[in-house]
C-alpha cells in the first residue's frame, strides 16, 4: 500500500529531501514573513505587496522550549492513544532573524534542549486521511543533544 505524502498545510514548507519552511521576502524592503500568508509587507514603513518565495534556514537555535503533558483540545490531532506528552520549541533562525514554533521531533523532550542549543528541521506524520499521509515540520536536536 503506497501512501501519498502531503504537507499538513499547503505552502508553508517543502517536503523534498531537504525539507524547509517557506517564507515570503518583500521585494522592496527585504522583510521576511513566515507563515507565508501575508498580503501586505509587515514592515509599517513599507506598503509593498510584492513578495518572492524563499526557503528558510533548515537549522536554528532554541529560543525556548517546553512540553505538553495534557492533550490539547481540537483542532489538535492526537497521534498516539493514550496521549503521550510531546515537546515544543521556539527556534531562532539566524539568517532570517525570526523565531518559529514547532513540535520537537519524537523521542526528544525539553530536557534535551536549552536556550541556544542547535536544532534542525525534520518532517513527521500528523495524520493519515484518504490514503494520504500529512506531515508537519518538527525541530530535531543536533550536536550535543541526544534521544531521551
Amino acid at each position, binding site marked *: 500500500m503506497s501512501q501519498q505524502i502531503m504537507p*499538513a*498545510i499547503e505552502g508553508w514548507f517543502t517536503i523534498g529531501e531537504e525539507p524547509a519552511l517557506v*517564507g515570503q521576502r*518583500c521585494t522592496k*524592503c*527585504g*522583510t*521576511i*514573513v*513566515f*507563515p507565508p*500568508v501575508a498580503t501586505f509587507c*509587515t*514592515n*509599517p*514603513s513599507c506598503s509593498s505587496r510584492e513578495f518572492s518565495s524563499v526557503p528558510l534556514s533548515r537549522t536554528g537555535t532554541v*529560543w*525556548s*522550549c*517546553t*512540553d*505538553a*503533558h*495534557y492533550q*490539547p*483540545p*481540537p*483542532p*489538535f*490531532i492526537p497521534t498516539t492513544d493514550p496521549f503521550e506528552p*510531546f*515537546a*515544543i520549541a*521556539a527556534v531562532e533562525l539566524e*539568517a*532570517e*532573524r*525570526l*523565531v*518559529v*514554533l*514547532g*513540535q520537537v521531533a519524537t523521542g526528544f*523532550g*525539553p530536557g534535551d534542549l*536549552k*536556550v*541556544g542549543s542547535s536544532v534542525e528541521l525534520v518532517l513527521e506524520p*500528523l495524520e493519515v486521511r484518504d490514503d494520504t499521509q500529512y506531515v*508537519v515540520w518538527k525541530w530535531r536536536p543536533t550536536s550535543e543533544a541526544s534521544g531521551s
Partner: protein
Amino acid sequence: MSNDVAVLGVGMHPWGKWGRSFVEYGVIAAQAALADAGVEWNDVEFIVGGETVRNGYGGYVAGSTFARALGWNGSRVATCYAACASGSAAIEAARTRILAGLCDVALVVGADTTPKGFLAPNIGERWDDPDWLRFRLVGATNPTYFGLYARRRMDLYGSTTADFAAVKVKNALHGLHNDNARYRKQVTLEEVEASAVVADPLRLLDICATSDGAAAVVLTSMRFARQRALDPVRIRAVSTVTPRFPNTALDMPDIATDSAVAVSPPAMSFRASIAHAAYEEAGIGPEELSLAEVYDLSTALELDWYEDIGLCEAGGAEQLLRDGATSMGGKVPVNPSGGLACFGEAVPAQAIAQVCEVTWQLRGAAGPRQVEGARVGITVNQGLFGHGSAVLLSK
C-alpha cells in the same frame, strides 16, 4: 490634572464557578459599583461593556446587554474587545469620553463565564486563523507559551522552579482574606512542586485557572467627583499600545515572530512598552509605585512583569522576589489582591478587577491586605494579538 478622571465607585461579583449567566454577574458588579459611588443607574450617561466572545450574541454586545438588564436608560453605549486587555480598553473608552467633556458619569462592566479545561478556539475549520492553526499544527495551548517564557527565564537568568513556586505561595497568602477571590487557601512550596507538570517547567499550581466573575467601575469627571468625595482615587493614565515592528518576542497565539532582517528591533520590548506608555502619559515613574497588579497568567510571567514595569533590570526579578520586595510589607507589593493565582482569569472582567483592587488600596480600604501608605498603583496585562494595557492610578 486635566487628564485625570475619578474612580468614584468600584464593585465586583465574587470569582468562582457559579454556573449562571455572565449578565447576572455583570449587573451585580455594576450595582455594587454604583452603590459604592453613590450614583443612580439613571444618572449614568455612558455604559461600556468588556466583550465576551463565548456567550452568544449577548456577549458580543456586552455593553448593551448590561444596559438592558439594568433597564434601558437612554445612555450612550459601547462594547470593547481586546482579548485579556478588554477591561482596560473599556475603561479607556469611558475615560476618553469624560476627558472629551462629553459626559460626567460612565459605568464600565466586564463579566464572563468560562469553559472547563484549556481555552480552545471555536469549532470549525479555519485555515486562515492563527489561533486555530497553532492548535492544529503545533498543539500549542496557552500554557505552551507560558512554559516557553518560563524556560527562557531559567536558561537566561538562572530562575528555578522554586522561584516560580514562591510567586504562587506569595499570591496565595495575599489573597487569603480577599472575599472576591475564588481560591483562599494557603499554598506551600511543596504543594506547588507536587502538582502535575502541565508545560515544562510549569505545574498546575503555576498556571492560573479560568473563572466566572465580574467587575465594574464608575468613572466620573473630577468636577463631578469632587462634589461627592474629598479625595477621590484618580486614573492618571491608560496605555493600550500595540507592538512596534519587528516584534521579536514570540507572542501568543503566533507560530512565528516578525523578522528583524530588514529593520532593527525597537529599543524596548512590547511588554515593556505597555507600562512605559502609561508612565510617560502621566509623568510618573516606576520609582513612585506603592503597589502593582500584574497579569500572573503563570507564576513565571509575574517575574517578567517586575522587569517590564520597571521594578528592576532584566534578570533582577528573582532577587526582588527572594528579598520579599514584592510581598506584603515589602517595597512594592505585587498582586496584593492575590492576583490571577487566587482569582482565575475571567477575561473581560480581569483588567477591571485589577483597577478595583488598586482603588481599594489607594483608599486605604483593603482591610487585611492593605498596603500601608499606598499612593500610586499600576495595573498591567497583555492579551492575544498585540493587546497590552496598563492603568496608572493615584490618590
